[in-house]
């Protein structure tokens, strides 16, 4: 069952002549983890805002086509009606602190209060959300005393506590270290397993290759690639639109030219695939110097 349905979506911001999104049409099935990749300005964040029901309601630009999320048409419903059904985590954690509450625990409760969730239900949901993101021990700290990475995890908890059916994440790991990024992707993966639909904008392709079910590549507001991580992340078009390839994919591509990677074998998009592939070919992967000689 499609939980997100986008049909002919074209959107132009007020005061802009060029559309940020051009004739997008796709559906997302419930329980899928869909990654959106693209160069800066490709329209990824705009797509998130459209899926969250914030465009067109709050931006007043020109929109054509339809976007339906959880059965609600975004042009027919106010943003407040999507809260709870659709969650959105933005890039900058500092701007996601409401400032309305004194502790992390209370900050996470803010959305529940807005949605009228009974007080008796709140503690269980808050504690579960804080556990999920690993912030349980910091529950009584002021949100302003947390590090950037901790604030981002708190922002994620503030949305997870609402138990949305669709979770939209706009570069949620931008301020996290590798361990923090892995923790976030593990949380996302667990959510997907329980039926949550996740759309994530992410530049770190290694996580996408490992966890995503499907990848959409955007360029200048258009979907130029749509498929499995194996297909999209190894497509030559991805390099042309400025996203580039993973080092493993580049290594195998270079290996192909030198006879170290079989032409018949798909290029790897995870470290495991690369190691297995090179082992099977009986070759050692190219050195760092060789990779650096071919920076693309």
């Amino acid at each position, binding site marked *: 069952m499609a939980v997100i349905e986008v049909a002919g979506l074209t959107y132009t911001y007020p005061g802009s002549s060029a559309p940020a999104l051009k004739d997008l049409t796709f559906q997302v099935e419930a329980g899928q983890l869909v990654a959106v990749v693209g160069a800066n300005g490709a329209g990824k964040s705009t797509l998130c805002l459209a899926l969250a029901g914030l465009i067109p309601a709050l931006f007043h630009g020109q929109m054509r086509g339809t976007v339906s999320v959880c059965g609600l048409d975004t042009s027919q419903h106010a943003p*407040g009606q999507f*809260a709870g059904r*659709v969650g959105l985590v933005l890039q900058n954690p500092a701007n996601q602190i409401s400032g309305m509450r004194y502790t992390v625990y209370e900050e996470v409760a803010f*959305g*529940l209060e807005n*949605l*009228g969730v009974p007080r008796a239900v709140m503690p269980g949901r808050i504690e579960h959300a804080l556990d999920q993101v690993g912030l349980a021990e910091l529950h009584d700290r002021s949100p302003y*005393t947390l590090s950037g990475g901790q604030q981002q995890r708190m922002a994620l908890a503030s949305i997870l506590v609402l138990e949305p059916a669709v979770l939209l994440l706009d570069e949620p790991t931008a301020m996290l270290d590798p361990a923090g990024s892995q923790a976030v992707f593990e949380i996302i993966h667990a959510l997907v397993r329980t039926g949550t639909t996740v759309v994530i904008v992410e530049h770190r392709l290694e996580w996408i290759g490992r966890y995503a079910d499907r990848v959409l590549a955007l360029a200048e507001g258009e979907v130029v690639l749509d498929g499995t991580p194996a297909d999209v992340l190894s497509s030559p078009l991805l390099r042309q639109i400025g996203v580039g390839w993973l080092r493993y994919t580049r290594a195998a591509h270079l290996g192909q030219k030198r006879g170290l990677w079989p032409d018949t074998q798909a290029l790897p998009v995870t470290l495991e695939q690369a190691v297995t592939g090179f082992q099977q070919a009986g070759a050692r992967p190219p050195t760092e110097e060789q990779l650096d000689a071919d920076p693309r």
Partner: protein
Amino acid sequence: MIRYSLYVPGDTWLHRLHPLTKLSFSLAAAVIIFGGPGGWLAALLPGLLALLALWRAGLFRQAARTGVRLLAPVTVMLFLIHGFFSPQNQTTLLRLGPFAIGQEGVAYAGLIAVRLAAVLAGSLLLVFSTHPGELVQALTNAGVPHGLSYLLGSPLLLLPQMAGRVQVIQAAQQARGLETGGTLPRRVRALFPLVAPLVFSALLDVEERSLALEVRGFSAPGPRTSLREQPDTPGQRVARRALFVLAGLLLAAGVALRVYGRH
């Protein structure tokens, strides 16, 4: 830990009072101080009450420190301007060369300074013992539209974020050679490179901040709930009404005295 907010966490009797009770006192005090009859008495009584409350709650020292920092420059200017240049000056207190300090101007400056101090004491009583979020919640629960409550509380709510941003901008500008310390002219010169990015970046953040609030149901339809109960008592509800009635009566008396007192 850096404390950006004026709120002092605690569990004193003042902290436990309902935010609207403290807000009512602050507002009533301001009305009585500036609008009530009696000049000095109208200014002194609410101010002393506020200071007494702050002292009983163990917040007097912080309040005094903040008050002196805020009021000292204003008070000095008031005494200088009114003491030397007030048109009401008739009795000379002190002569300094060609200039004379007038008693009437000094008395008027004193009254204004006491009024400002009293209003500030009433305000500090509220902001020192009430987290801005609690105040917003209390206003919303009292029927004030949620957006309006947030707007009213936002100067206090956004203070920590602005303070953090000031530090970042200051560090960035200092790294590029801007001197922010030293003499007064140098500090004034350094102000623009600090204020301009602060204002522009705050404006740019407004959009993302409002989006973040929206996705957490800020404008969601239906009734709201709250994690923490805000205890209220019949006594406090009566006190709030009594404060507004008292302020209204004293304001009316003050206005009447000013209007009819001239005739």
